[in-house]
């Protein structure tokens, strides 16, 4: 079991009723998919807000960053860097800075 740190946007923190960075227990290989699976299992109200309910694709105005690299277009099940898997670095889920 890996302990992974995740940062989610302000509006999703409000929706989930949490503050600050989240800590998740992730089993198996640590990938964007497995982190999101753990996140949605712990906070079911976030289902559908980061990835589409049916296609499981990333919502267009959200991006994933790990260790200062953009992981948004990487395969969702590609293992994240060790620094994220070990909890040294967080996985960042960031909303596009656009719109009003």
């Amino acid at each position: 079991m890996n302990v992974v740190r995740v940062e989610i946007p302000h509006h999703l923190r409000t929706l989930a009723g949490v503050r600050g960075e989240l800590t998740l227990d992730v089993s198996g290989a640590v990938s964007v998919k497995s982190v999101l699976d753990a996140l949605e299992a712990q906070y079911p109200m976030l289902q559908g807000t980061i990835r589409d309910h049916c296609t499981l694709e990333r919502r267009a105005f959200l991006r994933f960053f790990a260790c200062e690299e953009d992981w948004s277009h990487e395969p969702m099940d590609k293992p994240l860097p060790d620094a994220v898997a070990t909890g040294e670095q967080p996985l960042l889920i960031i909303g596009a800075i656009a719109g009003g």
Partner: protein
Amino acid sequence: MSKVRVLAGTKKGAFVLTSDGKRERWEVSGPHFAGWEIYHMKGSPVNPERIYASQSSGWFGQVMQRSDDGGKTWEPVGNKFAYEGEAGTHQWYDGTPHPWEFKRVWHLEPSLTDAETVYAGVEDAALFKSTDGGQNWTELSGLRKHGTGPNWQPGAGGMCLHTVILDPKDDNRMFIAISAAGAFRTDDGGETWKPINKGLYSQYIPDPRAEVGHCVHHIAMHGERPGVLFMQKHWDVMRSDNAGDNWTEVSGNLPTDFGFAIDVHAHEPETIYVVPIKSDSEHFPLDGALRVYRSKTGGNEWEAMTKGLPQKDCYVNVLRDAMAVDKLDECGVYFGTTGGQVYVSADAGENWAPIVRDLPAVLSVEVQTLS
């Protein structure tokens, strides 16, 4: 002591406005869900403390909320709206096929008999139903799979199912409206649907009298006379006296018959209200004067209601779900504007006053009459 609760959905959150039956002094609660678009909120007629809300965002998609204490606290419920079977295609703006894609919930219509049952009209146009208080949603796919579905096209605001009306005298009958497909009726609880657009004339579509393709903006009904419907179409105010089988124009002496909102007086089924808007390219009141028009004759003969409303330099819009009436003895009429005002008339439209002036753009207004 009677009381009213106004539910205002705005571009940046939800607001709950409460007053006693005099409707003079108001308490404002909100914003709830600050920063999110609240397309619609509506309370259950069975349990007025149960309120459903549609919360959405271009970033995070659709969230559904439910309150069991009249809007004081909220709980997220199910937000999975999956089209049944193959989604198929409708027409895009340029006439090419475009896949059906869920975007948001435009309208919520709680059941008249069961607080756990609620209908959701969504974009791209479809009707969903929940029987467990919003936790799970099932499409009533007979509507979308109606033979004309591939020919439906979006209006400027998207291909939205924005109006859901339940017949209080017939559990199996419902009316819905879609921009820009038109109006439809089911007589079997949502299994099958028929277009009810005969009599509509829309000169901006290839066949102005087509079976579907009309940009219906809103429909209103009085519960005591469910066979009589009033419609604000893109242009034209219409009425039907046979549950939508045929429509006749009742725009009469309106200065412009473009608009979005329409509603019926709570106790006078022939008294109706509209807010005329200048045109489809200029979404603001004619001459910068905000006027509600009232007809006491079911249409055709209209009078401007102006007392308390701005009569110069007013360039707001009143959207389709942003007008409502209460059920107090002296019927109250309410509407919200894209300028952030929510107005009330406690005397059926004679006099108006703002409840609030500076909310975000108002997307919807509903009112609950509480005892």
